[in-house]
């Protein structure tokens, strides 16, 4: 399935979880800060930015998270393993030309750019940038739905 997506958002949701998908408007270096180092991830024009909410939540929160990365290039701060704040973080974000959700990885443990944690209901859903479209594999209309939104706050 190919879904056209320019600078808006694609929401894919199941019964209790969702993905919010957007595209990077430009090429830039996204800073990632650890307690003793700074590394950069190359983000390229057209790359997918996917926010996963394995336990659900407000898609507007996911949209803001997405904008902090793609518009404001907000540096990401890495928490050390076992940090007490980790359990409060409910949404994960991934940036890559193609992204494959997986339910069987431990959240926050997979530095491979093309994998993102998801709920079981949405695992196996492949997403890839393809020109002005997003290619989605494994979409099951009986178990999930998708909605397209223009840029700006989501009207749900």
């Amino acid at each position: 399935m190919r879904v056209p997506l320019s600078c808006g958002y694609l929401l894919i949701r199941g019964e209790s979880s969702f993905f919010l998908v957007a595209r990077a408007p430009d090429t830039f270096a996204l800073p990632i800060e650890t307690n003793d180092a700074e590394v950069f991830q190359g983000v390229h024009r057209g790359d997918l930015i996917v926010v996963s909410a394995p336990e659900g939540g407000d898609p507007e929160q996911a949209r803001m998270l997405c904008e902090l990365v793609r518009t404001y290039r907000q540096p990401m701060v890495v928490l050390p393993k076992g940090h007490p704040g980790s359990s409060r973080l409910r949404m994960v974000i991934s940036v890559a030309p193609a992204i494959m959700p997986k339910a069987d990885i431990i959240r926050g443990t997979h530095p491979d750019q093309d994998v993102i944690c998801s709920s079981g209901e949405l695992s196996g859903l492949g997403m890839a940038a393809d020109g002005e479209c997003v290619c989605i594999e494994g979409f099951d209309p009986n178990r999930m739905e998708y909605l397209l939104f223009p840029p700006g706050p989501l009207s749900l």
Partner: protein
Amino acid sequence: MCSTGGPIDVELDEGLKGKKYRCNDCGAVFEAVGRHPVCPSCQSENVTEV
């Protein structure tokens, strides 16, 4: 990158192992993860691993 994220927080158990690059356009030296690094100073993709 599967990063547990609030607006600005991620958690990576394995840490972040970047490679060092030098920008061929502006000379900046930086550490990057991922297959296609971009210079943080001038956003150039013309970089060489050092």
